[in-house]
């Protein structure tokens, strides 16, 4: 048996080489796709801007724009060029970090310095809510096991969550918590003065509590949790009945390791499908909890018709979707070697 060994150096290096080439090809194609998606999506936004009714500069500046400002804006958006060249110039400026200047919402402030920090808040809410829903869904799915009849009582409420928009969940959550706190502190019966969740806890929880509640309501609402839960359970069922799990059982080895590893990929698929929806939900939930994120910024800017800010924030969102998809793909490929094999 000595001639067959694992540590034959030549063989090992050959296999390594092949794998590296395959991986780098795969990664390259994914990056290329992400880049082209970014270009395409930003072009859609630019084209939307160009197709605005009337003169866009008038729309943005309103009545109080000076001729210099108008000329500036024209140059920035490349309005004097045709749509392709204009997009090129606009995209180049955006790429070099110049997203324009806020006009009405916070006049004079560069959009990048407004949207950048705000977007961090949004991103952390989105990530926390995704992780939160995954943790709960995993826990419940493993606890309850594969779907069985006569679980309708338990599952009814969970399925109803599927239909609850995150902003409704957020309002209810805020109201209920408000009521609870009021009840404890003031002895009940008192009507809360505003919808803001925890006025009395302001000292400690001014920023943390709304953040947590926002994340919670996103992870519960919009069917994110339900979708994950259902996907996990269905996957658990098909895994439990799958041949290879039977085979693992029949050889007397532990099944759990195989189960957990095989559950990761479907979870990630739900993530990928849900990502745009989660980011949408963040916008409105941030608004409810007046969190200083980019969703709040977006809505405030939109209220003031501050086009550069709105466009800047949208670009951030698109960028985030593409990057997060890339990361999810990468994790998927790390877990499942088939992804790389079929990728190219």
């Amino acid at each position, binding site marked *: 048996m000595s001639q067959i060994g694992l540590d034959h150096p030549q063989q090992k290096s050959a296999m390594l080489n092949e794998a590296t080439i395959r991986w780098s090809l795969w990664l390259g194609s994914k990056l290329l796709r992400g880049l082209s998606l970014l270009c395409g999506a930003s072009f859609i936004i630019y084209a939307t801007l160009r197709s605005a009714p009337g003169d866009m500069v008038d729309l943005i500046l309103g009545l109080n724009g000076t001729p210099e400002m108008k000329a500036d804006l024209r140059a920035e958006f490349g309005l004097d060029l045709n749509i392709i060249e204009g997009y090129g110039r606009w995209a180049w400026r955006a790429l070099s970090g110049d997203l324009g200047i806020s006009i009405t919402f916070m006049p004079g402030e560069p959009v990048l310095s407004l949207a950048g920090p705000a977007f961090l808040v949004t991103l952390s809410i989105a990530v926390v809510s995704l992780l939160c829903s995954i943790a709960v869904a995993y826990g419940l799915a493993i606890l309850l096991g594969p779907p069985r009849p006569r679980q309708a009582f338990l599952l009814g409420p969970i399925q109803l969550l599927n*239909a609850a*928009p995150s902003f409704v969940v957020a309002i209810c959550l805020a109201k209920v918590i408000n009521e609870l706190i009021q009840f404890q502190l003031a002895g009940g019966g008192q009507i809360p003065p505003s919808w803001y969740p925890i006025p009395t806890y302001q000292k400690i929880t001014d920023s943390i509590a709304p953040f947590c509640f926002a994340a919670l309501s996103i992870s519960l609402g919009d069917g994110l949790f339900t979708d994950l839960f259902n996907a996990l359970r269905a996957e658990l069922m098909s895994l439990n009945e799958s041949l290879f799990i039977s085979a693992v059982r029949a050889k007397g080895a532990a099944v759990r390791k195989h189960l957990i590893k095989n559950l990761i990929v479907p979870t990630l698929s739900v993530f990928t499908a849900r990502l*745009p929806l989660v*980011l*949408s939900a963040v*916008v409105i939930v941030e608004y409810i909890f007046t969190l200083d994120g980019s969703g709040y910024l977006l809505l405030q800017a*939109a209220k003031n*018709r501050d086009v550069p800010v709105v466009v800047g924030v949208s670009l951030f969102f*698109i960028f985030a*979707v593409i990057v997060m998809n890339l990361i999810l793909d990468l994790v998927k490929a790390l877990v499942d070697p088939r992804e790389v094999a079929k990728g190219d």
Partner: protein
Amino acid sequence: MTGQSTGQSTRQSTWYSTWYSTWHSAWKEQPLSFKLSSIIVVLVLCFGVINPFISYDPVLDVELSRRDLAPSWEYWMGTDGQGRSVALRLFKGIEAFFFPGLIAGLFAAFVGGVLGALCGYFGGWIGRSLSAVLELIDTLPRMVFLVLICTIFPPSILLISIISSVLFIPSIATIIRRKVEALGAEDYILAHVAHGFHPLKIISYHILWLQCRALLTRQMIFVFSYVLFIETALSYLGDYGVQEPYPSWGNMVAQSRISAVAWPWALPALAIIITIAALLAFGDGIARREEEVKR
């Protein structure tokens, strides 16, 4: 007479009686959730159709002397802070999303279905470039893009619903494409080509109509419920959707900010959840029913 006709009843009966008998037996074996949800869907449908013919006056009737009344026989969902009947406003509020949702659903299902079937049928570069465009649309975060549109264009609920239906086309097309590709993988389409059918007939009749109608109906209902969601969300935000004093479920929920009592906003919130749940369950039920292949 009955004794004689039983043997041939399936043959000679009119189309509506067969239709009725199949649906009657189908209804009986449906689960409770499907029955409940279809009742709610039918209710929404009725109100949606009737609403345009009802006048706005009682809905807008402000009377501060009867504000914040608890639910009673007269106002059986109570009244809000301005003394308007919550029940009436709730029913009238259906108008805000009904027709936009219907239009958006039909549009998205039709275009998505056709595009998906074309992508799946042709494959090759047509399929690939189409799916590239669809993937592009899918990367746009829906809410953000809608807000952008509303900033640039004068917001109207029709525009919003059309845009949201366009944003849904990719996912519908992808579902249909997968289905068509799954059919193609078992040589099903090839078998029909070999039999001599026209490709257009195969796409439109054998694939889209016979195989994908349940899926499309379900997706249509899904888009409808999404428009309901978007409309209520935007009305809740207050700047883009239906404006006060006209009722919409979204701006009724928004009263949670100012209302002293729960029912003016909690009941519409409940209505949103229940309606969306019913719509989804109804869509699922229809899809499931079609999946159970005829016996």
